[in-house]
């Protein structure tokens, strides 16, 4: 396998901390007596431990309200379809991922749910006034992408949550891009639902995600089946978290995610941010110096999750990705990044943008190699 420099961490992070790989290996090697609904006395419940680690990362008041699923999309679907019914109105934004847009549009088509998508500006920020004006008497859910996976724009979640609270409308925060990348405190900013994915900045494997469902915001279970407990009940148990965790869980994934979360805590979010900001400053300064590069991302790194979208004048977006990958062994991503609506605002439809997303594991040398490659590519046309 060739050596690649990897800048596609907004899609999935790589490399993973060795602890993640070790823990998963151990879990798959050991006799499965621990943690998956087994009877053994004093079994350490690895799933319970995972809930506790995640709850403490998000400063969530009750770890039993962390539920696991196969990814963020699954939980976003569950909450959207579980809470919205015919005649309801939901508010979301142009910065959403298809994992929100498609379930919302499906709820609209199937059940006549009314939708308002509030526009964002050309950097990806939500206009708070427009957002405030979108509420109606029948508004029952607000869905917000915390950090744009296209421009990196971080929404002001404190303000958004205050407004939603004032209107007594539950807020569903899609933290797929932000969990592990910035500090999220449910103590400081309570939300009804927080959805996270395990395989991005939380450094877990692909195929694991979850949600925090605040007390008072339960919705009907979206799947019914075996839960390992309360088996005499002919219906899905009411008790959370089993209410939402049907069938055999992805325990190796959960164990890997636990170690990913522990890694984030061990390094510390502020250290992670500090390192990424230092690298991003070098990169953004160099990209701004290059007059052929068009940046679609915010300048203020404190208001960014650290993802950058760009184009190079006279180059097709797809060719930028092809050349970086195949000629320079540098992995970035090109296209719409599953978030088509924001490209309407950026003016980048139908081809999208080129996107760079760093992780804690990237180095200054790698960033310098990327800058050199971008400069070399851009001067040729």
């Amino acid at each position, binding site marked *: 396998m060739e050596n690649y420099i990897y800048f596609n961490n907004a899609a999935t992070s790589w490399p993973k901390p060795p602890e993640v790989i070790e823990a998963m290996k151990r879990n798959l090697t050991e006799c499965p007596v621990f943690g998956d609904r087994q009877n053994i006395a004093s079994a350490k419940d690895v799933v319970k431990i995972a809930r506790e680690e995640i709850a403490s990362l998000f400063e969530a008041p009750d770890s039993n309200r962390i539920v696991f699923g196969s990814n963020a999309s699954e939980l976003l679907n569950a909450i959207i379809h579980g809470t919205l019914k015919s005649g309801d109105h939901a508010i979301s934004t142009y910065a959403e991922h298809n994992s929100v847009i498609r379930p919302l549009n499906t709820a609209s088509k199937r059940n006549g749910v009314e939708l308002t998508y509030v526009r964002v500006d050309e950097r990806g920020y939500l206009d708070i006034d427009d957002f405030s004006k979108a509420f109606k008497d029948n508004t029952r859910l607000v869905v917000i992408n915390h950090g744009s996976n296209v421009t990196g724009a971080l929404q002001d979640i404190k303000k958004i949550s205050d407004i939603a609270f004032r209107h007594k409308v539950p807020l569903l925060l899609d933290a797929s891009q932000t969990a592990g990348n910035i500090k999220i405190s449910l103590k400081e900013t309570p939300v009804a639902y927080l959805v996270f994915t395990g395989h991005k900045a939380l450094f877990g494997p692909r195929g694991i995600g979850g949600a925090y469902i605040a007390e008072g915001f339960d919705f009907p279970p979206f799947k019914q089946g075996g839960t390992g407990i309360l088996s005499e009940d002919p219906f899905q148990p009411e008790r959370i978290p089993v209410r939402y965790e049907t069938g055999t869980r992805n325990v190796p994934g959960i164990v890997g995610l636990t170690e990913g979360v522990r890694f984030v805590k061990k390094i510390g979010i502020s250290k992670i941010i500090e390192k990424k900001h230092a690298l991003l400053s070098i990169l953004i300064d160099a990209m701004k110096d290059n007059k052929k590069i068009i940046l679609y991302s915010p300048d203020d790194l404190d208001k960014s999750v650290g993802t950058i979208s760009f184009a190079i004048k006279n180059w097709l977006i797809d060719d930028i990705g092809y*050349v970086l990958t*195949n*000629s320079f062994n540098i992995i970035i991503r090109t*296209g719409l990044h599953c978030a088509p609506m924001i490209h309407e605002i950026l003016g980048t439809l139908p081809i999208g943008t080129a996107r760079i997303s760093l992780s804690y594991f990237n180095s200054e040398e790698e960033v310098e190699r990327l800058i050199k490659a971008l400069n*070399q590519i851009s001067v040729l046309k």
Partner: protein
Amino acid sequence: MKISVVKIEVLDDCFKDTTLFDFIFSKALQDDFINSLSSLGEFEYYTEFPKPFYKVFRNGSFMLKGIKNSPNMRVSLFPENKVESLNELIAFFHIDNSLMPILKKE
């Protein structure tokens, strides 16, 4: 031995209506072969890159691109003239009939 296409892989289509293939040749492509593509359309060849990149573009018809020393060539057929473009590429690269069903499926 003459270079020939030995396999054609149909790729997932990112853009509606554009058909995407990988042509896999019998040998890694070198300068002579790559330069001969210039007769097909607008030709760009960036030899200064760590792995040189070539691209051939014919407006409304097709785009070919790839890397020197690789046997793979990415082929995009634009919706306007798919059949004609395909026939032209089949003739140009002397693509064997046995590979045709894969192409025709698209």
